[in-house]
């Protein structure tokens, strides 16, 4: 392993891959690899995750660079798909089929044993709805049906694009456990998500992508550490904003304070200390706090920050 973006026993290799659609660059010069275990592909919506996954799966041809799966170009060698299954993000399911028929169809197309159909349905806890048409499924149920269709193929590589979208917390926990189990069995499991907390719960290794570029790679703890350097911005509503602002400016843990239209905009490098000091100061001054909200906590801003640091 030479960089955190590369692994030694790679099953998927992405080498200087770029993809553009007309004038728009969706993925730019990305080099990374994926091997056995669970890798989270993290990034805000529109960052290029889906395009990268589609290139890895052979749905899109790189405009530049190369992608190989199990040593072959999936665009040229359909045999690769005996070892790769994709769960796409969009509602790419046949509404007129039942869940069981969809999974059976996947088994037939992949040459997998039909005896695995029931097991795949059970693995995603879809038994009760398996014989109902997919057109009547909720988004979460469709997601699980697609995951079951991937599981039945017994593929060595699972590429899952936002598989937890639309699932409820119980289903999410169940799926995360399942993905981890599959990874522990030695499969390459790549899961994309725009929710950091989700990725933290399931992946040991994370690749962060922003604006089509690889922004960070490594274990989750390293990404977290990088994020602690980011100044947090808060919006504070109070009945006496100027009085509160004067006190906060004097406090050591606040780096800047602005007042706009009666609202305080505070930047701090130590959110914990501010969290303790703010209510105490407000109480001391007799200031009534009516709202405290993070202003800049989106993953997008976090990763834009990481990009700027590179």
């Amino acid at each position, binding site marked *: 392993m030479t960089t955190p973006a590369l692994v030694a026993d790679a099953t998927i290799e992405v080498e200087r891959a770029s993809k553009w659609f007309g004038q728009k660059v969706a993925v730019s010069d990305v080099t990374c690899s994926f091997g056995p275990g669970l890798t989270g592909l993290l990034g805000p919506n529109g960052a290029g995750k889906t395009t990268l996954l589609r290139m890895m799966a052979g*749905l899109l041809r790189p405009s530049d660079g190369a992608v190989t799966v199990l040593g072959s170009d999936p665009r040229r060698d359909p045999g690769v798909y005996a070892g790769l299954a994709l769960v796409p993000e969009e509602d790419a399911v046949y509404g007129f089929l039942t869940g069981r028929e969809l999974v059976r169809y996947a088994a037939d197309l992949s040459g997998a044993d039909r005896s695995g159909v029931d097991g795949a349905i059970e693995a995603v806890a879809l038994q009760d709805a398996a014989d109902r048409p997919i057109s009547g499924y909720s988004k979460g149920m469709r997601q699980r049906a697609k995951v079951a269709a991937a599981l039945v193929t017994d593929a060595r590589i699972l590429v899952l694009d936002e598989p937890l979208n639309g699932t409820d917390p119980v289903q999410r926990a169940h799926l995360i456990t399942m993905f981890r189990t599959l990874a522990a069995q030695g499969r390459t499991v790549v899961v994309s998500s725009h929710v950091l907390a989700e990725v933290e719960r399931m992946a040991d290794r994370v690749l962060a992508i922003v604006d089509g570029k690889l922004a960070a790679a490594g274990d989750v703890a390293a990404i977290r550490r990088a994020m602690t350097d980011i100044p947090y911005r808060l919006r504070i509503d109070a009945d006496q904003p100027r009085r509160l602002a004067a006190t906060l400016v004097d406090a050591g843990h606040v780096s800047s304070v602005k007042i706009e239209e009666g609202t305080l905009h505070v930047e701090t490098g130590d959110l914990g200390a501010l969290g303790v000091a703010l209510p105490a100061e407000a109480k001391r001054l007799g200031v009534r706090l009516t709202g405290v909200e993070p202003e800049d906590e989106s993953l997008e801003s976090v990763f834009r920050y990481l990009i700027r640091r590179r």
Partner: protein
Amino acid sequence: MRAFTAITRVTLRQLLGGRRLLVLLPLAAIPGLVMLLGSNDMTALGAFRFIHEAPIAIVYLIVVPIASLVLGAAALGDERRDGTLSFIALRPVRRPAITGAKLLASWIAASVIGGVAAALPAVVLGAGTGQWAPLVPMILGAMVSTAAYSAVFMVLGHITQRAVLVGLVYVFIWETGITGIAPGLANVSLFRIGLTGYAGMVDGAPQLLDEPLGALTPGMGGALAKAALIAAAGIALTAWMLRSRDLASEAG
């Protein structure tokens, strides 16, 4: 073979479900209705002549191309539109097997419509005059043209989302217009392929169809060979596009 059968089966359900059939089945009834109303009170010879005018024109120039267009273009077009193309394309299945199964399914589906449309006027003729000779050739001729049309429209459905619009222009400008004006182009006219097959099987038909057939030689063997060639080209071309073109559009 298992994948081929599975794709054919699911595509047939995809094509014959929903509202398509509700539109296409009434269309298929039109030639029979025209025959029923138009041949009323005619002699056996008059009815035999009449079936080779309006009813056969409606079958070969309208019903067969439109059914093939709607169903052939949907064979891969629906998968592309609905995002399900990855479900069949990302499988260890040779691309020609995928496109071959798609063509087979759309041909079967369109043949049901074209076959009904071809059979009804022939049944009216047979029931009214006892002349049943055109029945089977009408159905076979329609199926032959359907194979050629389905192959062309499957390619079109994979290339553009406006396949039906482009296909209608092709049918009504090229097939009905230009190939009729320029006799040399009759060889590449898809509806005439089925018509030559039909004419080769029914005594007296070539004389009654001399205007659309022109210099073409009637015969089912030649018609089958041409349709098979076009179908093979359609399968190969679409398979090549599955390998070489992006199978998904821009995404985040």
